[in-house]
């Protein structure tokens, strides 16, 4: 899987003595071995990867203040309560909606919800952290354990189950903006205090592919359960990745932490770079330093931020301004009833119930709200047809307008009505696309009204159409003879005549069918 062996800018001395390293080529019959790396010296290494995922909670207000949780594109410092700016005398008040979302996540990940959890302060000085501490859950998180498996359906050739260590509620920091004014750091506190769910995994992942597959699935699950926003905005979602390598069978090696990764491409590149870097160090008999690194996407390299000696003492302290969270089993079971069906169950059901292809299912499940939209349209209609409409025409016209499905103004009922017009032959497929565009552009009429107004209704009276066709056979007997003698291509002539005489309002497919019937073909 590591086809490339990069030369690292900081390791040029190694590159000179560079020995090509062959990655083991394993077959699918030995799935757990695919991640192993065997060097020419015969040593086999196993990468070990663990994650800390931070997902912003989709709550209307911040975790501890009444200020709204705004998207990162908002203008700076418009959603700041005195609490968020840590004015003296202000106190945090826990947002109940955030607790509900955390419990929902824990349930979706089969994590063990703690009936009593509490908040702690994590201290460090930074201009975008107004109080000088972050309120988090260090000692008693809201949930412990749980897992999420990725497998064939997710694009991994085998199954990997990733366990969670804990799930905790915490507040986000503000944003430091560099370079707007010369030599100054500007601070935007819109994000300060926004609720974040941190999910910490066990070191159960073994490769960049596994990690990206897992993260994609986790992200999908979080937006699917309406816990987190589906947009991959900077800040709405980010993760820290712990990477170490060890000789196969040995204890865990020294790990490095790559901070603050957002994009899947960066995550993949950072992990691969880091694995290679560490293997190469070990091959040269040098130790891996325990350190924090960041990923530079331009160089496609991880870069050292600080070493072990630079590790901050966060001086954790129980948060005295907030009492413990006490949850009742009844509260938890109420939330469990609001949980949608698990993703894997949904995938199987879509295939069975609607006979959708794996491709259709994958596309629908990748777009937030698409399955729900599809199922509304599919009531009383052919699933495969509906799925094609959504995946093809609808998504196409959304994409061309830079919209996503959740902001689509064409409701499922209207798309359904449009599909029906085509299916019953009242509107041609081509005109249907026009109608869809008209609706996307803000026309709120029904598809039928639009078609009527535009004169796009096909002559759908089959009897009238048959009559016209019969008349044409009499009008052009020599052409009819040609058809009967086997020149079937001549049917096109008749279809064309019908289209001409009905001013294009007939469905050519339907017309062709009528002629086929008349010619008893």
């Amino acid at each position, binding site marked *: 899987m590591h086809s490339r062996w990069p030369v690292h800018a900081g390791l040029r001395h190694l590159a000179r003595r560079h020995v090509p390293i062959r990655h083991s080529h394993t077959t699918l019959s030995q799935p757990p071995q695919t991640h192993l790396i065997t060097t020419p010296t015969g040593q086999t290494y196993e990468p070990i990867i663990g994650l800390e995922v931070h997902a912003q909670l989709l709550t209307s207000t911040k975790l501890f203040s009444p200020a709204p949780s705004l998207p990162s594109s908002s203008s700076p410092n418009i959603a700041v309560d005195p609490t968020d700016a840590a*004015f003296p*005398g202000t106190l945090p*008040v826990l947002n109940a909606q955030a607790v509900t979302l955390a419990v929902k996540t824990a349930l979706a990940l089969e994590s063990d919800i703690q009936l009593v959890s509490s908040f702690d302060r994590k201290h460090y000085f930074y201009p975008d952290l107004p109080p000088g501490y972050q309120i988090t859950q260090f000692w008693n998180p809201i949930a412990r354990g749980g897992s999420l498996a990725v497998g064939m359906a997710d694009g991994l050739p085998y199954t990997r189950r990733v366990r969670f260590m804990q799930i905790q509620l915490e507040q986000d920091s503000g944003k430091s903006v560099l370079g707007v004014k010369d030599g*100054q750091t500007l601070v935007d506190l819109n994000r300060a205090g926004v609720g974040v769910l941190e999910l910490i995994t066990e070191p159960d992942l073994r490769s960049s592919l596994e990690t990206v597959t897992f993260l994609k699935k986790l992200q999908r699950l979080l937006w699917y359960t309406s816990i987190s926003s589906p947009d991959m905005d900077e800040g709405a979602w980010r993760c820290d990745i712990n990477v170490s390598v060890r000789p196969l069978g040995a204890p865990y090696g020294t790990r490095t932490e790559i901070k603050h990764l957002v994009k899947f491409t960066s995550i993949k590149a950072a992990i691969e770079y880091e694995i290679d870097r560490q293997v190469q160090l070990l091959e040269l008999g040098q130790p891996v330093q325990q350190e924090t690194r960041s990923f530079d996407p331009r160089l496609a390299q991880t870069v050292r931020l600080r070493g072990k000696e630079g590790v901050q003492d966060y001086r954790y*302290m129980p948060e005295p301004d*907030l009492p413990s969270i006490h949850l009742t089993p009844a509260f938890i079971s109420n939330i469990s009833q609001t949980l949608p069906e698990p993703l894997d169950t949904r995938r199987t059901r879509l295939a069975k119930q609607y006979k959708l292809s794996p491709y259709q299912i994958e596309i629908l499940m990748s777009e937030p709200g698409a399955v729900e939209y599809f199922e509304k349209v599919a009531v009383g209609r052919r699933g495969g047809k509906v799925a094609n409409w959504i995946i093809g025409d609808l998504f196409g016209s959304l994409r061309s307008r830079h919209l996503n499905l959740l902001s689509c103004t064409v409701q499922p009922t209207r798309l359904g009505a449009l599909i029906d017009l085509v299916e019953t032959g009242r509107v041609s497929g081509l005109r249907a696309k026009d109608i869809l565009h008209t609706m996307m552009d803000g026309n709120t009429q029904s598809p039928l009204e639009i078609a009527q107004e535009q004169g796009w209704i096909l002559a759908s009276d089959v009897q009238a159409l048959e009559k016209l066709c019969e008349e044409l056979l009499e009008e052009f007997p020599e052409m009819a003879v040609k058809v009967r003698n086997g020149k079937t291509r001549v049917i096109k002539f008749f279809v064309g005549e019908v289209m001409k005489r009905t001013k294009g309002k007939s469905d050519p497919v339907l017309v062709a069918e009528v002629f086929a019937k008349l010619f008893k073909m």
Partner: protein
Amino acid sequence: MRVLRCQSLLVDKQYQATRPISRFLIGTRKDPTLLSISEAVSDLKARKTTPSALLKSCLERIAARNGHLNAFTHLASTDELIRKALLADARWAQGTPQGPLDGIPIAVKANICTKEHPTTCASNILKDFTSPIDATAVRLLMQHGVIILGKTNMDEFGMGSTNIHSAHGPAYNPLGPVPEGHLGGRSPGGSSGGSASAVAANMCFAALGSDTGGSVRTPAAYTGIVGFKPSYGRFSRRGLVAYASSLDTIGLLTKKVADAKILYDILAQYDEKDSTCLQINEEPTVLHGDLNGVRVGIPQEYFMTGLSSAVLQAWNAAAQHLASRGATVVPVSLPNTKHALPAYYVIAPAEASSNLARYDGIRYGHQSERCDSTLKHELYTATRTEGFGTEVKRRIMLGTFVLQANSYTSYFLQAQKLRRLVQSDFDNVFAKPNPLRSTDSGSHNSANGVDILLTPSAMGSAPLLADIANDTGETPVNEYADDALTIPASLAGLPALVIPYGQDTEGMPVGVQLLGQYGNDRAVLDIGKMLEACRTPN
């Protein structure tokens, strides 16, 4: 209007010599500032006085004495005060006062947020800071018509028990001799020294203070007034600038227990903006004119070395008076009392180091100009070095140390355990169970338990500033040790009331302290009222 700091005491002496105020007061029935709130309110109801008259006499007192006492660090604009008083006059005249306290002038400690005045916490780091919020306590008082006169002096961020640690300079005890120099006077106690001094000097009818380890009770004892610290969480902390969040309470400084009760009834409200605010309702105490059936505990561990004879005398006299009113006075033991002081001086600094991390000079308050502000750590260091006083720095350093990963277990965690021991001591002696702890009431002995504890409130009377200065030069230990009598109730979150009870040979007041079970604030105030009524007149 900013009040001039006591530049020179000669000024004050000259002022006293001319004394325009005394000329003004000649001919009045009684100086209205000598009234308690309840007396003033009954005069208002009887139309014997008006809010304007009350305000005017307070302002005259302030003009005459504040320059010397340095009790107020900021006064509201006189025009604004008069405008408010006139409105209150009109309401009383129409018989529609906003509440029983409509037009009563009250002072607020400088660490309680008000939108109309600076909230300096007596710190240079908040020198010109005005809060965007009103503290819930302030809002409740204003809703009841109270006029906020201004902000009072204190030990910086509440850290101190003598009011010498103030960026505004020390506040003075109005009962002490007129000092010949700054160190000649006596301390009003701390940290709510300005509030106590203002009330004791009759510059206002009552004051809000704050009490983390005794900051309302010690000043009350030193200035001969009533000091009340409610149960932790009984008054909202919203708008009280945090020192040690798990201990901080807003407290009351009044002339009479009845006044504290009036303010208590206004301020004891659940506030959804303070998650630690108490939602437990109180059972009313039933006292039928005497204390029959009331059991009073005398904790033996409070007989500490260093108690002055005047304090012992007052304690003894108070016990005898309670007994004479029908109470059963019994000795009780609180064996972990000795652990309270060390536990407090770990927990409070730890929380302080955290709470004060926000003063970085970036969003509000003092920002150093001495350094390149683009280097954040230099900016932080310079700002905080310039902004904080010695005692605050000392506690931040101490707190930072005890929260470090390698000292957390041996200091902070141990202190929390000790705190729990101190708390259970109290639970073991009180007849009522503590509503915060799960009650296996089987183990609770209501027959042998006591309803209230009677203790001294300070080791002696108000110290001379000169003596404090000698003591605290290098080690603050003696100043800390004075808190031993007030800290246990803070650690346990109990309601505590200090009542003046006699005086020493130099005529300085001493007080006694009543402690009730958690949540039993009203019982403490009710019993305190009876004790106050039967104290020896002095």
